């Protein structure tokens, strides 16, 4: 579903991501772990086409992001770490805008908005301007927007930050549903317990380079994910 090959991204003289390769198959929830400034967000932004990368290749569903970014973007959805959503729109208008861009028909979007807004208890707030939303509400709106067009790949940057326990639980269930339906999830997190319980595979990034990746059992061995992560961080 997502193939990252030798991805390199620099900002001036600083190399944020260095020769990173990953493969995420359909049905997989892939966790992406690293300390602050390790290059997680840069990788995710490069994968979804926000940042232009310097070298390497990103393929989504077999389509090259460089050659056909629009076709790739049609297959994916992205949720950033800080959901800065248009404050001049109401929640409903924003969801309709996203649905328009993805060409979701009227009946389907109505059903999905109702379904997900009810699930996240946001139905009563959809007529409010986004400027009146709390961080958590914006996060929920960004999640609903991401699920509007049933993407095959969902890329999320710290998706659980700001969500209440019920919404977090709900999101985990939805992530699993996507993968059960043949989609894939690629997300970054600092919460290692969540990664350990939720992910099929995990990758650890340090100073822009991948230091370990594979199935959860392969990465952690007999230790906990936290122990492995701290051990790798301690290594020079």
């Amino acid at each position, binding site marked *: 579903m997502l193939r990252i090959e030798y991805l390199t991204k620099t900002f001036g003289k600083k190399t944020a991501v260095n020769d990173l390769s990953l493969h995420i198959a359909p049905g997989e929830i892939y966790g992406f772990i690293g300390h602050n400034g390790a290059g997680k967000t840069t990788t995710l932004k490069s994968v979804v086409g926000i940042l232009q990368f310097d070298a390497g290749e990103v393929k989504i569903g077999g389509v090259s992001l460089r050659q056909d970014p629009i076709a790739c973007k049609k297959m994916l959805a992205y949720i950033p770490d800080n959901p800065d959503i248009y404050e001049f729109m109401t929640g409903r208008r924003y969801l309709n805008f996203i649905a328009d861009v993805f060409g979701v028909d009227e009946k389907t979007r109505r059903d999905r*908005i109702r379904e997900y807004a009810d699930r996240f208890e946001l139905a009563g707030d959809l007529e*409010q301007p986004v400027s009146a939303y709390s961080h958590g509400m914006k996060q929920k709106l960004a999640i609903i927007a991401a699920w509007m067009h049933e993407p095959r790949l969902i890329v999320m940057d710290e998706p659980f930050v700001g969500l209440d326990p019920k919404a977090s639980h709900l999101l985990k269930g939805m992530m699993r549903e996507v993968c059960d339906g043949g989609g894939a999830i690629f997300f970054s997190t600092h919460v290692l317990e969540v990664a350990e319980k939720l992910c099929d595979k995990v990758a650890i990034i340090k100073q822009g380079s991948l230091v370990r990746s594979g199935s959860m059992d392969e990465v952690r061995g007999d230790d906990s994910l936290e122990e492995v992560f701290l051990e790798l961080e301690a290594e020079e």
Partner: protein
Amino acid sequence: MLKTLIKKQFAEIFRTYFYDQRKNRARSKGSVIAWFVFFILIMGGVMGGLFASLAASICGGLLAANTAWLYFAVLGLLAVLLGVFASVFNTYSGLYLAKDNDLLLSLPIPVRTIMASRIVSVYLLGLMYAAVVFVPTMIVYWLHAPLTFFTVFGPLVMFAVISVIVMILSCGLGWVVAKISLKLKNKSFVTVFVTLLFIAVYYFFYFKATDLVRDLIANAAEYGEKIRGSAYIVYLFGRIGEGDIPAMLIFTAASAIVFLLVCWLLTRGFIDVATASVPAVKTRSRQKNEKRYSVPSSLLRREFARFTSSPNYMLNCALGIIMLAAAGILLLVKGTDILEQIENMMPEYPALVPVLLCALICMLASMNDMATPSVSLEGRSLWILQSLPVTARQVLFAKLKMQLILTAIPVLFASVCAQIVLRLPVPEAIVFLAVPLLYTLFSALYDLMLGLVMPNLTWTNETVLIKQSGNIALALFSGWGYELLVAVAFFILGKSVGFVPFMTIVSVPLLAAVVLLYRWICRKGTKIYQEL
């Protein structure tokens, strides 16, 4: 504590003078001094000069008619009016929308201390605007009247009373604005409407000022008697300036009591208003809203939603709409007389009137520059469009379309109104309608290019971006620069060349610029946007 808070307030008010937000660093000493000198020149020199000339024009006449109190009443009320109008919205945002309200309320600071620090800044702002009117008033009076204890002391007391009245009214009105804005649905349009109304009233009085002053001086005694009889409080107010002790005592005591009352009311309701945001009322879902639009339509709707959500955006970048509509109506009502006069001024230029009208419409069209800040206004939300399956070209064309729609319609309206008055033959009429439309296209492309070349995505204050950006100033003045070139060309060629050939000559470079700009937007512009 109060001192600390006042210091913070002052640092906030004068931040722009000490700190360059675009370069993200403190200004040099020379730059700070230059900014303050500029500010003093504008306030004292330009505005103060205007009111000094007004005071000078009525002072002698009213003193001769033995109605010095009327002089003080008129200019005192003007000072109150300017002070209140200039500071009421600042009061609202300073008292109730201050970004540190939550922070300060969470600290162990009494609410009345927070209020006091805010009120001091309101007072100083009102004082500054009132001074612009009243300081020249006092100086002009002292130059005309004999200097005694009462003639010197009276105006000074009156100035102090005015400053307190301005503060009371500003605080009161600020509170009303805060209360209303909590319940208002279409805040943006109401703000734009009120501001435009204020501008219209201001210009109405500005153009009528000479007649009003002449009338006031000619009938000073009669007006004085009328006011004394029906509005005694205004008479008493004016008497303070003359040094009348009972008037001073009554007004000082009354303003002190009302001021304390306002402070008490403000402190009581401060927390409720300052911490309330948009009412978080749960509403029923409106499922009929789910209507499908194509990607270009959806992007265009998004641009319009952004535009109509911000009164600042509308007022600063779309004044051309109002001006073009007003120009069209003015031409229909008084066009024949005005155009006849212009024609008679320079009969050696046969095409003067249609060229002048064409240039005027283009100039007013250049007051619309909403495409310029539209790129920077994406700000932190830029990730949305960058991660969606839309091309940079689609996004940029939506911005372009918005400006074209909002400008071409009023341009066409003004042109048709002008054509009704001018009654040009068909070929000339076609050129007369086409050239402003071509200019509208050029202007939209040029404004968008400026937005792309000089983007600022890290802004914290939308107003600064819309009002003070270099690209906005360039967008406005470049348009006027083109008009200037047309005027120069006309004075060189206008005697020997008719309307159609002349407009064809000036349109050729415009058309070339349109083609070049269009190609630039499609190639380089889209690339710049993708890499933002």
